[in-house]
């Protein structure tokens, strides 16, 4: 794992760095004029500054990926759907109270086989973005996708999901319609499925709203997509008030495809054209199609029960912890 040496970041990170820098300069000046040397203090401060700079550099690098993952010109779910699947037919509605357009769901063919395709849809222009609520789903959206997943499950169609959402919609009406329950049920439904589920993170993978569609037998992630328990902005709001906080939080959250592969949360990184998927969407779609076909091939001969078990196994082994028999409170 990519560890870093700094463990504690002061509240006002940049000011602190600057202060350290000035302190170091001052020490240097004093030793220059007085002949008294503060080697240890100097070294410590220099190291601190170096680390701060390293962190800053990493944060900026990560932030670029965050920005790329949100780039409006990136191919979105509809672009992948229309270019990867043949004969796609969109299905609508939760059969209960609403059609939520922030999630697109339907049936299509890939390599001659029928699959269900479900993905967040942020919308391609302002009008659509407002109509699709910027890809933030209501409980009804997750209920529609559950309906389509269950339909696919019944007919033995593999399921492909595209993840691209800032998160589930956080609004009063969403709460009153059971947002928590809808997400949890979506997870449950995905664990019940006896068909292959291939998940692709194509842009923003925001929290529970992303996870709700992301219980896959195989989880792939575009190089510049992100996947996180909380948005960097949300995290920074909790941790710091510094405007640079979001960048630092992005780095701390380890939300990039490389970190996620490292942690075993995803199975594959799909590399994007130089500069990001938006520079050559046609090629991006073509590449992704190949990987989806490969992923589907992997599970061609796996039977339903095994698929379900593999999915359970995969997610139930996620976690890092230590076992210690020492009594933490022996002195109490």
């Amino acid at each position, binding site marked *: 794992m990519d560890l870093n040496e700094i*463990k504690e970041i002061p509240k006002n990170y940049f000011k602190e760095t600057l202060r350290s820098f000035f302190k170091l300069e001052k020490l240097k000046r004093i030793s220059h004029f007085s002949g008294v040397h503060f080697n240890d203090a100097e070294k410590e401060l220099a190291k601190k500054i170096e680390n701060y700079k390293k962190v800053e550099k990493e944060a900026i690098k990560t932030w670029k990926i965050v920005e790329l993952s949100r780039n409006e010109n990136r191919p979105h779910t509809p672009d992948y759907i229309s270019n990867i699947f043949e004969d796609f037919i969109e299905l609508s509605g939760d059969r209960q109270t609403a059609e939520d357009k922030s999630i697109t769901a339907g049936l299509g063919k890939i390599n001659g086989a029928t699959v269900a395709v479900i993905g967040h849809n942020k919308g391609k222009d302002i009008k659509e973005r407002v109509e699709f609520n910027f890809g933030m789903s209501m409980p009804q959206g997750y209920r529609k996708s559950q309906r389509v997943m269950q339909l696919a499950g019944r007919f033995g169609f593999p399921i492909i999901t595209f993840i691209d959402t800032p998160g589930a919609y956080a609004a009063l009406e969403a709460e009153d319609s059971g*947002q928590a329950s809808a997400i949890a049920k979506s997870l449950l439904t995905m664990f019940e499925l006896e068909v292959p589920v291939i998940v692709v993170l194509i842009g923003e993978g925001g929290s529970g709203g992303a996870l709700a569609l992301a219980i896959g037998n195989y989880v792939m992630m575009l190089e510049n997509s992100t996947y996180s328990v909380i948005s960097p902005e949300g995290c920074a709001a909790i941790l710091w008030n510094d405007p640079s906080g979001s960048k630092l939080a992005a780095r*701390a959250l380890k939300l990039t495809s490389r970190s996620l592969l490292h942690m075993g949360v995803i199975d594959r990184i799909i590399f994007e054209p130089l500069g990001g998927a938006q520079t050559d969407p046609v090629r991006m779609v073509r590449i992704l199609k190949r990987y989806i076909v490969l992923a589907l091939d992997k599970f061609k001969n796996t039977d339903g029960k095994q698929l379900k078990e593999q999915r359970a196994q995969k997610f139930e082994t996620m976690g890092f912890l230590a076992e210690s028999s020492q009594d933490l409170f022996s002195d109490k």
Partner: protein
Amino acid sequence: MDKKQPEKIKCKNCNKEIDPDEFLINFNICPNCGYHGYVGAMKRIQITSDEGSFNEMAQDLNSVDFLNFYDLKSYSSRLTEARLKSGLNEAIVVGDARINGFRTSLGVMDFSFMGGSMGSVVGEKIKILADYSIANKLPLIIFCASGGARMQEGIISLMQMAKTVSCINRLRENKIPYICLITNPTTGGVSASFATVADIIISEPGTLFCFAGPRVVEQTIKKAVPPDFGSAERNLRNGQVDMIVERKDIKDILARLLKLFKN
């Protein structure tokens, strides 16, 4: 005798002074307005299970700072502090217990341990508890109290939502009953995972139970949320919980449900 009287405390709801002894005896419920105050995992176990019946499991699992997560403090130091503050080694305590004689698998979250946030250890303990339920055919009971996922474990904390729901799915396949108790507050990743896929969901009165907290929602919709936002009463009306049960009656209702499920 110069032994100090315990300081008077004030109710968080009605703001009246409460006699600390009475508060303690009364399961941390305000004798004046009925407000259900915070109760820790150990006290909850004591008031819910038969005396001496609780056998803790998996108490040796500890969180590790695998992301080297820095915050105002490091995750490691936060963990140490939380351990000292709560007297627990993680945000959930799990074990085998009896409730009016009925043997169960019991998990109790504690909000005082880093806001009851769910990280790898909480997920793993729930898995161990669910597996224990399945192996011994014991009903599963979990008391929730959580601010959500544990940010300091990044994506891995999000994955605990999936992990715990998968365990509950296996529990369902094995036809083991699962009752979830919602205590104040239960929000975020816990409410959107194992809490809401229970067979029976019971809420304490006045409990905040929602996915996104009131402040987050206010930021999204740019206006104030109603005063009963996420309250147990609103959740009952909106079909999210089966019933609201006062703390003093929870042991009894659990025993009655366990009797029904023990067909």
